[in-house]
């Protein structure tokens, strides 16, 4: 008897439809994640001139990326793994990579949405505008930066099985990233700390996003930051994929 294997494109489109629907049904929690960067833009209204538009927007996009990768992505993976959603999908006639590819494509859309929202809020609240090239490059750097935090989220779900522990760990790391990143970068925690923060995953992502907004300011330091960002993304992804278990039973 002939056995027919469904086309990968058909499988992937079915998964994408389901994953986007799930994301849409969870839109309240996602909107809360997006609210933080917008609130920061509102609260910085009076000091944006001093900080610089690129600094403000890149900080907000970076914070949003941390939230998407750590809280959005990793929590949904941990929850679905716990319920056996992945196990059920893995006994279907499709390669396992399709499951993760669909999840990552949804997150990619969220990164683009976050960037658009920050741009709109920046323009309407703080009157920050960029050159067309700045907007285009920022989308690209935001996606590269987002890969770092998706990779970090993957490491967390790779190392931690329990969804509640994943949830609390990601919140803690999110908080640490924002506080240490923001204050460290401003030099509040000392010069040595500032240097560490600049070359940390937070700092390199933020720098390439800020530089992408003003392409004319791009220099060798930014290229180093870009290479480091790609390195962080690759490192986290490799560890996260290697440690990841589809089943936590």
């Amino acid at each position, binding site marked *: *008897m002939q*056995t*027919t*294997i*469904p*086309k990968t494109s*058909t*499988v992937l*489109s*079915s*998964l994408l*439809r*389901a994953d986007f*629907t*799930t994301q849409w*049904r*969870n839109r309240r929690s996602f909107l809360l994640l997006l609210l933080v960067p917008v609130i920061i833009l509102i609260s910085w209204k009076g000091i944006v001139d001093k900080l610089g538009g690129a600094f403000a927007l890149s900080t907000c996009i970076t914070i949003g990326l941390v939230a998407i990768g750590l809280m959005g992505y990793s929590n949904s993976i941990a929850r*679905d793994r716990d*319920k*056996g*959603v992945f*196990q*059920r*999908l*893995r*006994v*279907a*006639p*499709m*390669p396992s990579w399709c499951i993760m590819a669909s999840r990552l494509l949804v997150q990619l859309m969220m990164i683009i949405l976050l960037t658009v929202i920050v741009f709109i809020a920046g323009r309407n609240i703080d009157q920050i505008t960029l050159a067309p090239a700045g907007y285009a490059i920022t989308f690209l750097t935001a996606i590269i930066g987002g890969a770092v935090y998706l990779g970090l989220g993957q490491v967390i779900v790779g190392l931690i099985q329990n969804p509640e522990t994943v949830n609390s760990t990601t919140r803690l790391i999110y908080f640490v990233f924002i506080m240490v990143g923001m204050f460290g970068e401003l030099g509040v925690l000392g010069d040595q700390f500032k240097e560490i923060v600049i070359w940390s995953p937070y700092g390199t992502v933020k720098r390439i996003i800020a530089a992408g907004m003003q392409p004319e300011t791009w220099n060798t330091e930014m290229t180093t930051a870009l290479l480091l960002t790609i390195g962080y993304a690759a490192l986290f992804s490799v560890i996260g994929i290697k440690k990841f278990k*589809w*089943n936590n*039973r």
Partner: protein
Amino acid sequence: MNTDDYILQVKGLNVYYGAFHAVHDVSFHVLPGEIFGLLGPNGAGKTTTLSAVEGLLKPRSGSVIVSGYDVQEKPLHAHAVIGVQLQATSFQAELTVSEILKLYAGIYGVAMTREKLMHILQDIKLEDAAGKKFGQLSGGQQQRVSLAIATLHDPRLVLLDEPTTGLDPQSRRQLWERMETMREKDHAILLTTHSMEEAEAVCDRIAIIDHGRLIAIDTPQSLIDSNKTKPEVISASRRGKITLEDVFIGLTGKTIRS
């Protein structure tokens, strides 16, 4: 019957979790139109064996052939002919019943028309719950959705992991009827269960597994007949007449497993 006619053939299966030898040299086969029960106490190796059949676990040695396809070598072909109902909830709680059915129809390459969708929903008595989210369904309703998806692509082998757990008697009866319908279509069913009543009522053959080893395999009646004189089986009997449960307790012991 030729081995080529087997829907499922498990040969010399050995599965390890680290240093722990979970399944020892297990071999059995399932024929077309057969309902085969895998029984065993908690932690005996039933779900591990089933996971190896599903291709979710890689055995240290041995092979699993489903309808001619080696699960490890041709997993996609093997998965295309298997329908699976897992123990866990298994579906996204945010999706509706219709959306889940459409998702799996797409994954299995089944054309899902509106009429077909309605037919499936009527069949599992969930036509009024089509727009209800999976997470809002009762345990019994979730099981019915799970079974509908396991049989959506008309698989040659259906694997059911404790399918009647948490079901009320009506739902249980309905499930048994559905299994009979599948048998009539020459589909094979491999199920694990803790219910001896269920095993006796629906299974054509039963394998009892304990400590990862297959300790008995036969029809329910033959298992009773061949073990009814054993002292440990007689001592397990509570009502004088030897039942499958007595045989099971006699062979696997009275100690409660964790």
